């Protein structure tokens, strides 16, 4: 028991002393971004503890509270720090619940894209030949189109194929599917490129010589050595996925108002922007910007920290 504890202690100390951690401690931007993301994560995991009001409890909503400006503005109320929306919901609470939806869809899409792209890249790079050519041609065709168009088209296809009612019931998984499918190409290309290099290394030849099967060579020997660029890619992709979800929701093809994401909240507030109730759209929008910015700063730092060429 004490041995295990000592081992754990040593591991933590090892991680603390590693180059990456050393780099991290010296980058104020990365530290700030991590703190912001940590706050988002806590709020996303325990929204009921953080949010002042459970916004989707209809009994707690009063229409007379509609359109109250933020607490510091004229006519604001201390009960609603960031004001209320058109239905009298507390905006801060709606934003906290909305960020949770945005993060779920974003993370889900990244995981899906990883699950498709990394194996395909490994197989394409390791096997080569016809399979490689096929996978990379499909990737080329998809790369011809920007992600947002692919996502909109996938969503349109799902809508037409499933019918409006079924589509609505499975909206979150379908959205994750649409956004995740737009992202796999980058992973496949990167992993393939790295696999082509790693395949030539002696350790791979050694593994094959001792009788490891191709699956084991790919998963246990090559995969761990190509994960660094994948990690950087996944961070940047998370920012892109969150933006994609927000954009789809904003144009009305994403999450509906009943369980709004940040993009949906901006869409709902957009109707009131011209009539002067600016806070309903602007605060969810700025929250979205903060979330994406924090992810991007972290991704930027990771890329520089993990790339020995730049140091």
């Amino acid at each position: 028991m004490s041995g295990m504890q000592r081992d754990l202690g040593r591991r933590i100390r090892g991680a603390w002393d590693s180059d990456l951690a050393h780099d991290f401690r010296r980058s104020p931007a990365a530290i700030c971004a991590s703190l912001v993301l940590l706050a988002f994560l806590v709020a996303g995991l325990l929204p009921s503890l953080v949010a002042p009001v459970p916004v989707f409890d209809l009994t707690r909503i009063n229409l007379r509270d509609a359109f109250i400006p933020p607490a510091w503005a004229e006519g604001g109320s201390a009960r609603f720090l960031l004001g209320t929306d058109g239905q009298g919901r507390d905006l801060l609470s709606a934003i906290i619940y909305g960020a949770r939806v945005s993060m779920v869809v974003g993370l889900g899409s990244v995981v899906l894209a990883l699950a498709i792209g990394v194996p395909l890249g490994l197989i394409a790079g390791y096997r080569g030949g016809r399979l490689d050519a096929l996978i990379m041609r499909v990737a080329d065709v998809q790369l011809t189109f920007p992600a947002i168009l692919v996502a909109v088209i996938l969503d349109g296809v799902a809508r037409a194929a499933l019918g409006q009612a079924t589509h609505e019931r499975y909206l979150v998984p379908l959205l994750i599917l649409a956004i995740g499918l737009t992202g796999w190409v980058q992973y496949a290309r990167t992993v393939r490129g790295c696999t082509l290099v790693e395949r030539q290394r002696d350790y791979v030849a050694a593994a094959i010589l001792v009788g490891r099967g191709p699956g084991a060579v790919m998963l246990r020997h090559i995969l761990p050595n190509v994960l660094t660029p994948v990690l950087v890619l996944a961070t940047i992709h998370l920012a892109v996925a969150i933006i994609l979800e927000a954009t789809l929701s904003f144009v009305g093809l994403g999450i509906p108002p009943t369980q709004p994401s940040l993009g949906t909240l901006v869409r709902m507030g957009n109707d009131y922007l011209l009539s002067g109730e600016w806070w309903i759209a602007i605060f969810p929008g700025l929250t979205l910007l903060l979330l994406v910015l924090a992810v991007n700063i972290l991704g930027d730092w990771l890329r520089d920290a993990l790339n020995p060429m730049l140091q």
Partner: protein
Amino acid sequence: MIAYLLARLWQAAIVMLTVVALAFVMFTYLGDPVVAILGADSTAAARAEVRRELGLDQPMIVQFVDYLGRLLAGDFGISYRLGTPVDRVLVERLPATVELAVFGMALALALGIPLGIVTALRRRSLGSQALLGVSLIGISMPSFLAGLLLIWLFSVTLEMLPSFGRGETIDLGWWTTGLLTGSGLRSLVLPALTIAIFQVAMMMRLVRAEMLEVMRKEYIRFARARGLSDRAVHLRHALRNTLVPVVTIAGLQLGSVIAFAVITESVFQWPGLGLLFLQSVAAADVPVISTYLVLIAALFVAINLSVDLLYLWIDPRLRSAAGAEAIRR
């Protein structure tokens, strides 16, 4: 060089054929066009009659060849939602999108490339660091949010610029333009800025990264050792070698500008192709969606091909097969 060209053309043809096949599958199997034409309460006999008239009872391969023929003849079917031929709707909406995309792109190129070069050359200066920080906000900003903030600032608060529509347009017969009227020009400012914000940030970061990469090369050090002025080193050696990736980026960004115009058009109710596309997706208007898909694919393939041709012109090494092989390594 001929082999290179042929390979690119072949690849372009494959992409187009794939997309057309996808569009055909969508067109044929998503939603029932017969029901869409006759209405849900039509009789089975009437449906069979229309099905035969439209050729939907033919084998699939015959239908596909038929579809291809109609596409090439410019007959894209009839919009379920609007009840008018798709080609007429598209031609009507095209000028608005082209004017928006061209202006947004011009703005992005005019700002992004110089900023990228300057921030690469003066890497450690405070101004460059600040610009880099701002550009991170730029690429983190969803374009609909940028549009919204611009509307809030310039339309609602300052009441300087219009927040929706194209303003007054002048019909030139084959083209309607908003560039010849005051209200048309004023309406163009905010949407074009919205497109440019993300693109400027993106372009600046990419150009900077490329330029830094080039500045580390041996031939730059050698050029300095020969006693060439900074100006000559930067412009003749560094910039010229940065140009290849920049052309790729610019070409691909033009596609992304058109894609993001979808969002910008929705924010500003700009009556272009993007807004039409979104409305069609929401209404599952398959003829319009599939046609848009084919046309956008054609556009992107054309852009990619021109980018490849520009390569040949900028980078002479590509003109010989051996040179191309050497670069690929």
